[in-house]
């Protein structure tokens, strides 16, 4: 269950009776005059996978390090498993962390790495051996105890780092962009593996990333962070389909953005007119009145291509005439870059996965349109809270 400061709490699949594993209340951290983490409140339900998604420098690591205890908040309170953590040093907190570059101990074997925390707790040698063996089996690395860390592949290292934390049965596992260092293919693979691991262990994960695809695929809930604040907290679907701020709309998933003025407001449908004269209808998010400066977004896969305008207008969609600039063939992810003819505005539009329009050629003129209800429009500069850009 996640509670954002100005967002309504929305109890979803977590058991509402259970206490949240992590609760932060008005947590803030300043570096000089710079607010790295700005008065954040949220909670993470037991057993859920919670991601914090945001661009570089937005304060994700700072927040995570406060939870782990490496930093102490300037104000506010952090509760883990219901207990306040003020003044509790990192080695006494029921949290473990998987570091961005994993921080496996290179001078120790895999087994010693995984057993490190247990040894520090004074667990008996035999017991450590048993539990390390079990844990390695659970992360699909049975018998890897005696390997050296540098003998492992990237994905195996990943699993060792997670095993090393999970063997301590923490209330909370923190992960700071753990896939950041892996290459493309491996990252795709580890994404799925991580999701399955979390499901299998049932441990609460708090996961940091700047890769929206990771956050969407992995999480039960995602908080989109910007400038030290949460712009929106919700399920991946909510963020993708119902962005609450222009930042979220632009950051989560690919999007075409059009800035302009609201020249017509009709219920929740707004017509946006750009400086170049492009007019585009969209669904209003929040209060918008005629004449407001606005930003509208339409996703590449929401737009439809057609060789005849009639095909679009017949379906009740607006229709734009555009020239093909560039074909970006990429199998199922193919797209075209178009320039709307009258306003010279560039659009990226996904090609249908059916292979239709595979014969499109650069320079050709086509039409495109979209369902205005699936395009969104915000008053310019909308953020989660007015005083964010202080």
């Amino acid at each position, binding site marked *: 269950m996640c509670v954002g400061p100005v967002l309504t709490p929305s109890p979803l699949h977590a058991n509402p009776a259970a206490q949240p594993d992590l609760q932060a209340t008005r947590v803030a951290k300043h570096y000089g005059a710079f607010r790295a983490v700005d008065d954040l409140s949220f909670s993470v339900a037991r057993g859920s996978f919670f991601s914090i998604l945001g661009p570089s420098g937005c304060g994700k690591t700072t927040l995570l390090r406060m939870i782990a205890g490496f930093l102490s908040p300037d104000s506010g309170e952090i509760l883990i498993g219901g207990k306040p953590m003020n003044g509790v040093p*990192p*080695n*006494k907190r029921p949290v473990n962390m998987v570091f961005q*570059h994993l*921080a496996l101990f290179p*001078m120790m074997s895999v087994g010693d790495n995984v057993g*490190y925390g247990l040894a520090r707790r004074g667990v008996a040698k035999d017991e450590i051996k048993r539990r390390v063996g079990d844990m390695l089996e659970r992360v699909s690395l049975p018998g890897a105890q005696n390997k050296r860390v*540098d003998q492992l592949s990237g994905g195996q290292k990943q699993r060792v780092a997670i095993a*090393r*934390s999970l063997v301590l049965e923490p209330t909370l596992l923190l992960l700071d962009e753990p896939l950041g260092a892996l290459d493309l293919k491996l990252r795709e693979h580890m994404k799925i593996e991580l999701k399955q691991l979390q499901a299998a262990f049932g441990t609460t994960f708090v996961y940091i990333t700047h890769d929206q695809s990771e956050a969407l695929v992995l999480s039960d809930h995602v908080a989109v962070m910007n400038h030290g604040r949460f712009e929106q907290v919700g399920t991946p679907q909510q963020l993708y389909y119902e962005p609450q701020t222009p930042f979220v709309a632009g950051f989560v998933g690919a999007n075409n953005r059009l800035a302009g003025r609201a020249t017509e407001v009709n219920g929740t449908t707004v017509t946006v007119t750009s400086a170049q004269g492009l007019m585009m209808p969209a669904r209003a998010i929040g209060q918008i009145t005629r004449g407001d400066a606005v930003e509208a977004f339409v996703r590449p896969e929401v737009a439809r291509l057609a060789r005849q305008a009639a095909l679009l207008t017949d379906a009740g969609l607006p229709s734009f005439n555009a020239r093909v600039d560039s074909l970006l063939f990429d199998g199922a992810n193919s797209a075209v870059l178009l320039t709307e003819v009258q306003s010279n505005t560039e659009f990226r539009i996904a090609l249908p996965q059916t292979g239709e329009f595979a014969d499109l050629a650069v320079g050709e003129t086509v039409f495109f349109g979209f369902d205005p209800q699936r395009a969104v429009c915000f008053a310019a500069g909308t953020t989660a809270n007015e005083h964010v850009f202080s």
Partner: protein
Amino acid sequence: MIASLPRPLWLRASTVVYGLAFFAFLFLPLVVVAVFAFNDAPYPAPPWRGFTLDWFVGHDGSGRTGLFADAAMLGSLWTSVVVACWVTILSVLVGTANAFLIERTQFRGKQALSLLMLAPLVIPGVILGISILAFASRIANLADDLWGLELEFLRPGLPLVVLGQFSYIVSIATLTITARLKRFDITLEEAAYNLGASRLAVLWTITLPYLKPALIGSAAISFLMSFENFNTTLMLVGSDSPLTVMMYGRMREGATPVLNAVSLLLMVASAVLALTMMRGNKPGTSNNTH
């Protein structure tokens, strides 16, 4: 140019020739020293008069005092070992502390202090020797004048030799250890801390093991540097001469092959030491390269 670029034949040939000449230059003196340790003549000079082990095993009675009967030589060898051990221990300890000071603390003047730590490397050894000699004797004289206290360790002698050598060898140890500590990924410590280790346990189980190659390396360098030191030592010796000073004295007498014998012994010992160290170091160094 580099291997992947075409190199004309003459260039490749001259590289080989130069390499051979260079290594001949490096090894000729050592080979000569080693060979003449076995020459059956009173001076280490040609012609070759036959093979003998006299310069190792000869004893007082035989007219040729071999190395193993030369009490003074053996004594100075031992003195060198003792001095080198002290210098090594002190240098590694203080070097480690310095490394942590430079890498892990913040205070005003740190920059200047860390530059000052390098200064001994650009002070000629003789000057280090005389300045320490002068300062130590000033303090000792002062203690004597004021309190009638005889601070013997401040008078020329082994303690002062140890201090003198330490004064610049610790700079090298500091550099070596700092370089490794700089490359240390601090998140390893955080990870250990996060896994429940106390600060002491972090130091003991993570940081020091990581530093181990540098500690061993700087210990070896310190030992070698101390063992070889002459300039500083010469100004600070008292009645016990370390080997270099003793050998210098003997060389001015017109060396006998005993010097060759002791030199050969040194070569063998340091080769054995260095080779075992390189052997033992391999897994350790692979830690940081991967």
